[in-house]
C-alpha cells in the first residue's frame, strides 16, 4: 500500500503527462478542470494511468456520477436536490462538497474535483 506522499507524487506525474501542465501548477488544491485545464477526454487518459500505476480498477461512475447528475429524481432545473446531494456524498466521500452544497448548480459540478480529492480516492482504493 503506497504512502500518501507516494500517491501524490505518482498522481502529480500522471497529471503533468496527461495534461501537459507544469510541475508548479499541480498542488493538492488545484482543480483538474479549472486550474489544470483537463477536458473530458483527458479523464480517460488519467483513469487509465491511475489503473496501470496503482493496479486498481476504476468504474467510470466512481469519478463521474453521470447517473446521479442526469437523474430527474436528483436534479431539478439544473440544481441538485437534497436527495441528489446525499447520493453524491455516498458515492464520492473523497470529495469536499461543502461549498457546492450551498449552491448546488449542476453546471458547477464539473470543476469541483481537486488533485487532493483524486489522491484521497486513490488512497482509499489502494488501502
Amino acid at each position, binding site marked *: 500500500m503506497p504512502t500518501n506522499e507516494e500517491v501524490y507524487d505518482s498522481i502529480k506525474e500522471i497529471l503533468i503527462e496527461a495534461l501537459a501542465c507544469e510541475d508548479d501548477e499541480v498542488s493538492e488544491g488545484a482543480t483538474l478542470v479549472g486550474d489544470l485545464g483537463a477536458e473530458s*477526454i483527458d479523464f*480517460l*487518459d488519467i483513469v*487509465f494511468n491511475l489503473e496501470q500505476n496503482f493496479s486498481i480498477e476504476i468504474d*467510470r461512475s466512481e469519478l463521474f456520477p453521470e447517473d446521479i447528475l442526469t437523474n430527474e429524481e436528483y436534479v431539478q432545473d439544473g440544481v441538485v436536490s437534497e436527495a441528489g446531494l446525499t447520493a453524491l456524498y455516498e458515492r464520492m466521500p473523497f470529495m469536499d462538497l461543502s461549498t457546492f452544497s450551498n449552491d448546488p448548480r449542476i453546471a458547477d459540478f464539473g470543476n469541483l474535483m481537486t488533485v487532493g480529492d483524486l489522491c484521497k480516492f486513490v488512497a482509499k482504493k489502494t488501502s
Partner: protein
Amino acid sequence: MRWHWIDRFEEFVSGVRAVSIKNVTMAEEHLHGYWPGFPMMPNSLIIEGLAQTGGLLVGEHNQFVESVVLAKVSKAIFHDIVRPGDSLRITAIAADIREDGGIINGEVHCDGNLVAEINLIFACLRGEMADIDQFYPIDFISLLRALDMYKIGVTADGDPITPPQFMLDAEKALEQSV
C-alpha cells in the same frame, strides 16, 4: 474513415493488436508540398496511419456499433523521416478498450527500424453526434474487406472474426439490387 490512408492489414487480433502496411509513393501529392524539393511524409500523416489502424481496432471490438473518433495524441516521438518508396509497418496495441473509448499504444517501423512511437486516445461519440451516421454500411464493409480485415482477422482465441450483421445485411441488399 472516409480517407483511406493504410493499404491493408497484416495482423488483426480483435481487441488486442493490429498491424497494417502503408506504402509511400512519389505519386502522393502531400509529399511535395510539405518540404518543397525534398519529398517526405509529414509526421501528422504518420499519426493518421496509426489513427486508422488503431481506430478500426477499437471500433471492431464493439462491432462498429459506436462511432469512434481520435480524441487525443498522448505521445508522438519521431525517430526518422519517411520518404517515397518506404513501406511503413504500423503496429497498434490496445492498451485499454472500454465503453467510452480506447487507448492505443503504437509503433511505426520501416525496414525494421523504429520510425515513430505514438500513443492515441479514441472516444466513442455520445449525445447528438452519436445519432449521426458517419458511414454508409456498404461503403464501410467494402473498405474493411479491401483492407483484408476479415481475411486475416481473428479473435483473441484465434477464431476468424466476422463482419457485424448490419454490414452483412447491407451487402446482401446490394446483391439483391443488381
